[in-house]
């Protein structure tokens, strides 16, 4: 151990080796970054390589947007991984090793800063600065002058409809997912092949919301009454003698249809968390309740649920936030054009359809204000649970 300590600072070679290695790494990283930033970077680099290898035709094709585009992209990925991961490691390693050679008082203050610097830098650029900028932007018009117009536009009926929709999403989407999650967790807890069964409910979580929307649009598919219904729901519906309904597009049934898609997905998340929480309830309490003559339903509602209350709050707030920010489903199913518009979709429209950044900023801020209290509840509950 004494030997280790003596070798501690010298175990990676002299300061000079570290410096040289760092410089070489730095140069390579800079080359890598210039390739990455250029939109045609991968193609140009590969073309140059081809030129060097004497494959002039391949190089020519690449520069014209044909040829081995795929390999050019792969090259880009390789460089990205090298610069992104290797570069970060190099940065941390060399800086740490250099700083270690300094006096302990300086070293101990500098090292942690090195460790957190990339994270803090990225967060500042991508979250802190933009958040502030967006709030400011919500008070600005096209020319940058102060205006309340953007916020005023939030009082017109179109926006009130949007607000109504988000509230419906919040109430129905959350309660549906949490309720079904509790139900499935409780039911599955009692059967033998529990893990297998859980997979079926859990699987949709892996699917993108766009994909889920396609799946359910197919289920909701509508054909005029004279034609065969290939959508599952209408096939069953017409079998009972009713007229087929455009579940996915007709207001107001389209709203719960869309929410069902989210519930289908989020129930799995809720179920998994509740399942673990239920198993964490002490068996003594359960046994005692059974001995007291409680029925299974009473056991569940009056004993288990109160015990896992913290978890219920966590899951509810997490899903609530998802419903407030809902975008993919509404965007894919209708773009918000069937009276089902929501804040996030509207914001997207303001940005890319109407080019009204001010109003988009106001909408983003509305989302922020809506999500904030729910998030705080979530975090506080989490910390309370962790402290228990």
């Amino acid at each position, binding site marked *: 151990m004494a030997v280790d300590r003596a070798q501690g600072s010298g175990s990676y070679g002299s300061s000079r080796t570290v410096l040289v290695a760092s410089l070489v790494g730095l140069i390579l990283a800079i080359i890598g970054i210039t390739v990455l930033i250029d939109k045609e970077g991968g193609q140009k680099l590969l073309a140059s390589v081809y030129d060097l290898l004497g494959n002039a035709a391949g190089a020519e094709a690449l520069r014209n947007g044909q040829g081995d585009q795929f390999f050019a992209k792969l090259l880009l990925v390789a460089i990205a991984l090298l610069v992104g991961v290797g570069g970060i490691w190099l940065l941390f390693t060399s800086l740490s090793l250099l700083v270690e050679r300094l006096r302990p008082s300086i070293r101990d203050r500098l090292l*942690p800063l090195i460790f957190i610097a990339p994270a803090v830098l990225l967060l500042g650029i991508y*979250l802190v600065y933009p958040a502030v900028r967006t709030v400011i932007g919500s008070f600005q018009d096209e020319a940058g002058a102060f205006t309340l117009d953007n916020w005023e536009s939030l009082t017109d009926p179109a926006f009130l409809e949007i607000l109504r929709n988000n509230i419906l999403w919040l109430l129905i989407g959350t309660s549906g997912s949490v309720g079904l999650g509790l139900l499935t967790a409780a039911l*599955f807890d009692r059967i033998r092949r529990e893990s297998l069964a859980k997979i079926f409910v859990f699987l949709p979580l892996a699917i993108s919301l766009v994909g889920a929307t396609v799946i359910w649009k197919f289920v909701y598919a509508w054909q005029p009454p004279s034609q065969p219904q290939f959508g599952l729901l209408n096939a069953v519906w017409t079998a009972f003698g009713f007229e087929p309904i455009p579940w996915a597009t007709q207001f107001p049934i389209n709203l719960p249809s869309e929410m069902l898609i989210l519930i289908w997905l989020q129930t799995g998340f809720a179920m998994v968390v509740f399942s673990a929480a239920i198993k964490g309830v002490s068996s003594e309490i359960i046994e005692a309740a059974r001995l007291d003559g409680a029925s299974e339903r009473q056991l569940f509602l009056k004993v288990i649920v109160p015990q896992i209350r913290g*978890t219920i709050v966590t899951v509810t707030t997490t899903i609530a936030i998802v419903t407030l920010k809902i975008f993919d489903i509404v965007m*894919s199913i209708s773009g918000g054009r069937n009276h089902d518009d929501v804040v996030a979709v509207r914001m997207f429209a303001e940005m890319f359809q109407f080019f009204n950044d001010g109003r988009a900023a106001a909408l983003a801020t509305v989302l922020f204000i809506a999500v904030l209290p729910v998030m705080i509840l979530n975090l506080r509950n989490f910390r309370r649970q962790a402290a228990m």
Partner: protein
Amino acid sequence: MLDSLPLRISVLVICVLWTVPTLGLFISSFRNPQLITQTGWWTVFLHPFEQGWTLQNYEQVIGSNGMGEAFLNSLIVTIPATVIPITIAAFAAYAFAWIPFRGRGVLFILVVALLVVPLQMALIPVLQLYSGLGLYGTFVGVWLAHTAFGLPLAIFLLYNFMSQLPRDLFESASIDGASAFQTFIRIVLPLSIPALGAFAIFQFLWVWNDLLVALVFLGPGADVRVMPTALFNLLGAYGGAWHLLTAGAFLTMIVPLLVFLALQRAFVRGILAGSVKS
């Protein structure tokens, strides 16, 4: 009601209900395009051999509708966007957990507070930044964006894990003369692999399935389009072409479903670490 027949039937019904929509999509993607809209996919169970089973839907959607390229683009976007934030977050989480420094508490609270900020707040200014720098529609732009957006959760999760490592580990390491850096590399990182792995799966699925960030920063251009964007475009342009939509949608799901099935235990562990005190 313990493991009785009604219970088992209810469980079976639930599992079937949950699987049926995806099953319908999967089966239809292999059917003859005309048949898909003429007869329900459930009829395949009654007439399994009159369906005109075909791979042409997949061929078409991969080739002419750009799903093949979108698949590659998704891989290109997702892999760095998963690996890079983990690296950066691991270093930061370790410092927050085990290296005392001035302002550590306040800074950490600020980082976690960023969890509250919806990414919609970041879109407009960052897009303006990117337009100025020429990063719109580039992979680099979307890699950096996904990395930054994933950092608050990554740091939060990794911090929770690392801070629970036993203190004696660090004490004996410093007695042995190891620097903070060496402790990180040789002790903390290997022990943190479960947490790193769990977050990696989250981030992978999140980035692969993301629509909003891809639409805003990458755009709909065919050469950089990722799978959710391509599927979204398909929905818009070919709303009634179910032979394409079913095949296309299923293609977007293969990788996440496989990743998920193979690694679901780690995934579940990750979710629980963030939601339930174990």
